[in-house]
């Protein structure tokens, strides 16, 4: 075999048509820019930490969050009770850990309600215009005229105080923001040529709205949702602080603030640590949401 003159065919690398490069989509682009921004990266880390805490709450918590030990009331932070105990001797660290579950639940469900209702209303108003738009947007204007916490209080007063009703109330309060953002985006998207092209192929109105217009509004919706989760958690904590949200003995952060306010002078840790938890979570969602907005804004692309 080796004796034969070995004539190898010229090794021309016939450039085989490469499989098309992985689609560097809008979202991948945005993600890489997002991670590069320090503040939004911090936000992202905090959010991940919150989610992990919520998932592994039973593992992380050192005590049962509702276990009453009257002999251990108002213990200062120590190696036994890392963040101290409250007026019923419950471990504050464990309560905060379990409270993260409630906070995530509140944030996601309330924003879910706002988003679904807001996107529908805003989409219909923006797409169909005219009197439909007038009616929907005037209702939205009325909703916006109320201070949000006042409106939430009023709604809970009607529905009755409970965590579920607090979530519904906070969700309704968040509808106007979504509706306005979606409406304005729809107004610009519906004038584009590809929507005209969709009409020219004979597509139906609601098909155009849901298949062509709304998917092009995802970026602002996601930004609003992220920022909205922070606000929703804050609002729900406010309601719970006022006794209108989570009911005892649920370890809700706002309710914990309320429980500890009597002992603010003597045992400040009871109120400090839940306060810090609320602060960090809201900060995290705001940082992340801001970063997301910048990352998705094509004008800021380098």
């Amino acid at each position, binding site marked *: 075999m080796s004796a034969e003159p070995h004539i190898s065919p010229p090794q021309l690398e016939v450039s085989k*048509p490469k*499989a*098309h490069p992985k*689609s560097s*989509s*809008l979202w991948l682009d945005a993600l890489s820019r997002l991670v590069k921004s320090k503040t939004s990266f911090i936000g992202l880390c905090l959010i991940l930490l919150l989610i992990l805490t919520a998932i592994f709450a039973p593992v992380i918590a050192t005590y049962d969050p509702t276990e009453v030990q009257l002999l251990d009331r108002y213990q200062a932070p120590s190696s036994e009770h890392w963040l101290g105990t409250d007026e019923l001797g419950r471990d504050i660290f464990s309560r905060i850990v379990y409270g993260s579950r409630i906070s995530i639940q509140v944030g996601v469900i309330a924003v879910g309600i706002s988003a679904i209702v807001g996107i529908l209303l805003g989409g219909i108003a923006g797409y169909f215009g005219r009197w439909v738009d007038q009616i929907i947007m005037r209702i939205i204007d009325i909703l916006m005229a109320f201070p949000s916490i006042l409106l939430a209080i009023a709604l809970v007063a009607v529905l009755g105080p409970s965590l579920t009703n607090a979530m519904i109330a906070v969700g309704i309060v968040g509808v106007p923001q979504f509706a306005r953002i979606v409406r304005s985006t729809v107004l610009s998207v519906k004038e*584009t*040529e*590809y*929507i*005209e*092209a*969709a*009409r*020219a*192929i*004979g*597509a*139906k109105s609601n098909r155009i709205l849901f*298949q*062509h217009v709304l*998917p*092009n509004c*995802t970026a602002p919706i996601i930004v609003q949702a992220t920022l909205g989760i922070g606000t929703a958690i804050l609002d729900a904590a406010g309601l719970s602080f006022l006794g209108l949200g989570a009911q005892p003995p649920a370890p809700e952060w706002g309710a914990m603030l309320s429980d500890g306010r009597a002992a603010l002078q003597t045992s400040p840790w009871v109120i400090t640590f839940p306060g810090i938890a609320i602060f960090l979570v809201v900060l995290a969602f705001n940082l992340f949401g801001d970063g997301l907005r910048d990352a998705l804004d094509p004008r800021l692309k380098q």
Partner: protein
Amino acid sequence: MKDETPILQVKQLHTHFFSKSGVVKAVDGVNFDIKPGETLGIVGESGSGKSITAMSIMRLIPSPPGKIVNGEVLFKGEDLLKKSEKQMRKIRGKEISMIFQDPMTSLNPVLTVEKQMIETILTHENMNKSQARERAVELMDLVGIPESRNRLKNYPHEFSGGMRQRVMIAMALACNPEVLIADEPTTALDVTIQAQILELLNKLQKELGMAIVMITHDLGVVAEVCDRVMVMYAGKPVEFTEANSLFANPKHPYTWGLMNSIPKITSKKEKLEAIEGAPPDLRALPQGCSFAPRCKHAMEQCLTIDPSITKVEESHHVRCLLYEETEKVIST
């Protein structure tokens, strides 16, 4: 093929836009007809009403403020202007389809090409998804997109301009339309791609036998593909004739102007002869001939008498007083 009865007839089409500052007569009395397998060019400057004519045929005029105030659009003998929105949806994309000027913006950026093509097919054809996908592959092959099966999964931004226009053409042809309205299909493309796309349209027309309404401002495109031409000015047709006869023997002063403003490779030194002035305000058209204020050959009566369209030769119609003396003057 060409002496069949017209598939599409537009008669006395008037499309006006009602704005606060007055009525814009964007299309003001357009007449034409087109036979199966024929290509009709509609030529004119920006704002002469070419695109609005096309949109009126498709009944896609944004309303309000736009309104088709008068006229008939007969497709296979039926008046499209009298159809309900539901009936129109069945015609759009199936029997009359349209391709747009800018392929960069006329595909939905968040959906894959496959999804958009399948949507078009499923809207009109009684097929299941996998049949529609096969049809999409067929169409991509038809318009000459290599690796059609893989390319279907791509998003519009992964195609070049020329390829996107091919995708648009493929989508327009999805249901074998009988009339294809091409609204400046090559304007946004560079010259080599323009030629390819025109050639493709020509080839597809021969294969599929559809009629094409080619809207353009480029007389080069007309020379390349059109059988007959309508020149429009200020919402009105000013000259309507065979393409050959338009280039050999242009009659209307506006057409002369258009021809003179094309740079010629043979006469380098000459300054380009632009048509003086700007198109008139469509809200307040001058009395008499709309083109008179810019016309080098305007006579006194041009400012008072609005000429009607007159037959000067066999199948050569012109709206100009220069020729009306030979015929009888019909005041409008």
